[in-house]
């Protein structure tokens, strides 16, 4: 007798809320999991390589193949070979290969393929580019000032404004004047400028795909987050019908946003080489190429002016956000939107004006990275409130607690928070677990040349797509009945390490009463999974998991109806139903809760159906001679609604927090004349196990009424938001140095210390 029958007929404890072994665990710990570079070589397979621009801006006058080189077994693709030279993303202005203009360093100019990897590397060097260098625009403020026009009419990728209260006026100038007046009337006015820098995703598995063509069209298998993004880009690039494009996810070694939109580029490149050569083509980036050419977190400048009462009640807020989009638009408008929507922090304000602008520069396009614009603006608002607290002589966390959003309060976009607001509990738990108040009460402990300090941050992050995004996306999931009373989940939501396939099985198993082992998870391939929307935006469990739950329930209900009508156990009834109907499938589409109202025109309303909340605490030691910072302990209390799998949920929080710590302290893309000076793991420093502090994570569960499994909400991005400001507050506590700019490198801290003393 199968487990399906046993478990369907007798109640069992739920899987949700338990730490079942991850279903892809065994293959990963034995080395059997096949990542794209592990897939067997196909007959006749070629390797692909990319010829890239060595300069950030130039006119491309020509491409010459060295006549002394033997090109007989090398496939070459240039812009002139392309019928459509556009990478379809939000816009399609990014060329697949630069034709006559170079707009950023490392921009692809030509593609080569050869069976012999060593010869391929020589061939790349035998391509000569005739370039007329132009002066690049590398600084976003210069771009905004239109020192030179490099994109569109005015270099502006996108603008948004959010207004509230007295600043809510249709005329921008009147609104700006109104917010200035509102702030000027406040008892305490504080100004600040806060900046953040590029960050590389640095997934440990580099980007890679395999492409081949046959009579069914083009097939791409690769390391990717969003199979349907690549599908869309290939449809557009090759002008194919939807059923002629087949995109399949290989086991993916991390993404963090870096494999959201970029895989479209490498997929187009490999498919072009495969089409021209008539052979399968494998393209795997080496680390240097991956760091240089692929997207990074958008640098941002946030200028904040705020007004509050002497008793600390926050009143009015004005923020100007400037983001560097890089050479092409890619996903910048959405990143900017998320940044703007999170800029007011987790606080009540009466009057708000947020102006957000993203501009082009001659640097590689910036793109999706966990947090998606929010870590930049949350850094700014958290540091700003630390400044306000300084001004008022208050502990920053007391000031923040006084002003935190509660159920029924209204956000900057006018959204009334309807529940699942666990922020107060997060704050209380994280501060208690870390003994924040006890440690903060006394002056910082200094022993020898080491000073200890503690600092905290509190924040929220919207779950799911912004505003009407989910309504437009219409994410879908299919659940099929298989012989033996088993189910199969078909979804485009990918497991890139976060545990999707395990969590979806838990949700489907509890929705039906089946056992985990009776739930299959289909490999995400556009040939047979419906478009569930992309694997991004903290939406996989909350949005897509909810559809999985409904679809699984629907299939089980049909089997149970058959059981009632014709008798027999679950398996017998299931097999009888399958015999009768041949195919038993529920294809379910996401439905936004009916009350969610959002206006894209005015940027008002329910920006997200719900938010996750967290409070982070960092304890640091600062070497007073070198100003090196060591994080000695890290605490987070995070409101996830409902933890489907507590261990994996904490794994998300710990991993995201360490990326935030890395961004705060060490990770720094060093630029010189538009080129990256440290494109290697040797000099782009991500944290090791010795740099990482012990982590103490508390899960808070304020359930979201529309979330699956009893109220789950998104958690993927939230932990990227709070680490940097918590560390900066701890450094301030230890040393008195108030940092406004990331990263907190010793030389920058020294500069601040020197200025302060001088």
């Amino acid at each position, binding site marked *: 007798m199968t487990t399906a029958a046993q478990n369907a007929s007798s109640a069992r404890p739920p899987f949700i809320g338990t730490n079942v072994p991850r279903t892809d665990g065994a293959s990963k*710990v*034995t080395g059997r999991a096949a990542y794209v*570079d592990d897939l067997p070589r196909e007959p006749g397979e070629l390797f692909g390589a990319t010829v890239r621009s060595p300069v950030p801006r130039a006119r491309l006058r020509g491409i010459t193949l060295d006549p002394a080189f033997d090109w007989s077994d090398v496939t070459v693709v240039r812009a002139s070979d392309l019928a459509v030279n556009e990478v379809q993303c939000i816009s399609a202005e990014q060329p697949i290969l630069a034709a006559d203009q170079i707009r950023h360093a490392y921009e692809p100019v030509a593609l080569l393929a050869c069976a012999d990897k060593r010869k391929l590397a020589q061939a790349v060097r035998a391509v000569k580019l005739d370039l007329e260098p132009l002066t690049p625009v590398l600084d976003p403020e210069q771009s905004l000032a239109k020192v030179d026009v490099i994109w569109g009419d005015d270099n502006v990728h996108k603008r948004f404004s959010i207004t509230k209260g007295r600043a809510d006026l249709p005329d921008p100038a009147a609104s700006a004047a109104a917010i200035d007046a509102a702030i000027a009337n406040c008892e305490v006015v504080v100004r600040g400028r806060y900046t953040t820098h590029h960050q590389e*995703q640095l997934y440990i598995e580099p980007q890679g795909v395999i492409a081949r063509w046959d009579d069914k069209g083009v097939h791409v298998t690769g390391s990717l987050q969003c199979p349907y993004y690549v599908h869309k880009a290939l449809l557009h690039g090759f002008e194919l019908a939807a059923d002629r494009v087949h995109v399949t996810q290989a086991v993916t070694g991390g993404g*963090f946003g870096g494999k959201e939109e970029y895989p479209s580029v490498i997929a187009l490149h490999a498919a072009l080489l495969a089409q021209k050569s008539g052979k399968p083509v494998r393209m795997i980036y*080496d680390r240097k190429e991956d760091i240089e050419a692929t997207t990074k977190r958008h640098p941002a400048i946030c200028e904040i002016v705020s007004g509050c009462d002497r008793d600390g009640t926050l009143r009015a807020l004005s923020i100007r956000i400037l983001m560097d989009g890089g050479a092409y638009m890619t996903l910048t408008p959405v990143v900017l939107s998320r940044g703007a929507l999170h800029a007011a922090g987790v606080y009540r304000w009466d009057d708000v004006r947020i102006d957000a602008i993203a501009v082009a520069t001659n640097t590689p396009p910036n793109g999706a990275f966990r947090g998606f614009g929010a870590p930049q603006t949350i850094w700014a608002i958290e540091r700003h409130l630390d400044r306000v607290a300084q001004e008022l002589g208050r502990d920053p966390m007391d000031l923040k607690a006084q002003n935190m959003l509660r159920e029924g309060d209204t956000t900057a976009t006018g959204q009334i928070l309807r529940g699942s607001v666990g922020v107060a509990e997060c704050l209380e738990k994280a501060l208690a677990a870390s003994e924040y108040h006890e440690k903060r009460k006394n002056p910082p402990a200094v022993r020898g040349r080491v000073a200890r300090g503690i600092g905290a941050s509190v924040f929220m992050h919207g779950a799911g797509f912004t505003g009407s995004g989910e309504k437009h996306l219409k994410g879908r999931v299919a659940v099929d009945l298989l012989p033996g009373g088993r189910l199969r989940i078909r979804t485009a939501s990918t497991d890139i390490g976060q545990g999707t396939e395990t969590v979806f099985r838990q949700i489907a198993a509890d929705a039906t009463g089946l056992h985990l082992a009776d739930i299959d998870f289909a490999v995400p391939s556009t040939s047979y999974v419906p478009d569930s929307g992309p694997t991004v935006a903290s939406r996989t469990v909350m949005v897509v998991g909810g559809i999985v739950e409904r679809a699984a329930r629907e299939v089980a209900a049909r089997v149970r109806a058959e059981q009632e009508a014709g008798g027999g156990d679950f398996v017998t009834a299931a097999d009888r139903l399958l015999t009768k109907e041949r195919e038993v499938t529920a294809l379910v589409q996401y439905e936004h809760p009916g009350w969610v109202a959002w206006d894209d025109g005015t940027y008002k309303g329910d920006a997200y159906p719900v938010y996750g909340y967290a409070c982070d605490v960092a304890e640091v030691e600062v070497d007073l001679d070198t100003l090196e910072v060591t994080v000695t302990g890290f605490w987070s209390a995070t409101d996830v609604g409902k933890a489907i799998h507590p261990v994996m949920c904490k794994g998300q929080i*710990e*991993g995201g927090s360490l990326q935030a710590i890395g961004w705060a302290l060490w990770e720094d893309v060093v630029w010189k004349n538009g080129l990256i000076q440290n494109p290697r793991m*040797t000099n782009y420093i991500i944290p090791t*196990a010795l740099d990482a502090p012990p982590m103490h994570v508390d899960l808070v569960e304020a359930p979201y009424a529309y979330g699956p499994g009893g109220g789950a909400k998104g958690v993927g991005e939230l932990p990227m938001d709070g680490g940097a400001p918590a560390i900066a507050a701890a450094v301030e506590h230890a040393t008195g140095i108030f940092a406004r700019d990331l990263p907190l490198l010793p030389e920058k801290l020294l500069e601040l210390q020197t200025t302060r003393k001088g």
Partner: protein
Amino acid sequence: MKITLTLNGLSREVDLPPLVRLLDALRGPLGLPGTKEGCGEGECGSCTVLLDGAPVNACLVSIGQCEGRAVTTVEGLSDATHLGPLARCFVDHGGAQCGICTPGMLISAEALLARRPEPSDEEIREAIAGNLCRCTGYQRIVDSIREASRERRQAGGAS
């Protein structure tokens, strides 16, 4: 050049130019793709294997250096039917997420536990400091290794 080595306990012979990277020899002719390449310059530790019991980056070792020596890869830590205890602890305690660093991480942990059956958390962190992980924040990897060490000691030191 013919090179003979002991690979995961079995004697194997390959015919390769001696300067071919051990990593390429393992993933190619020796048919063991469990060892991963993350950077190709000895920084990320994804390709860590044991060479005569000591952890090395297989991207920095040539196959010629392996003549007459013993190499252990992740495939040697579990057998076809069941997971080794260290590997199982990584599954049970959240030590693996995307999994790309996991083979190298397991090898470094294996070398540590062979040398120090009861390591402190600090010793665990030291032992895996050459293996970069971008997913976990390391806490659950440390937990997994600590738990494996406890289980091994309970089982009387047998692995």
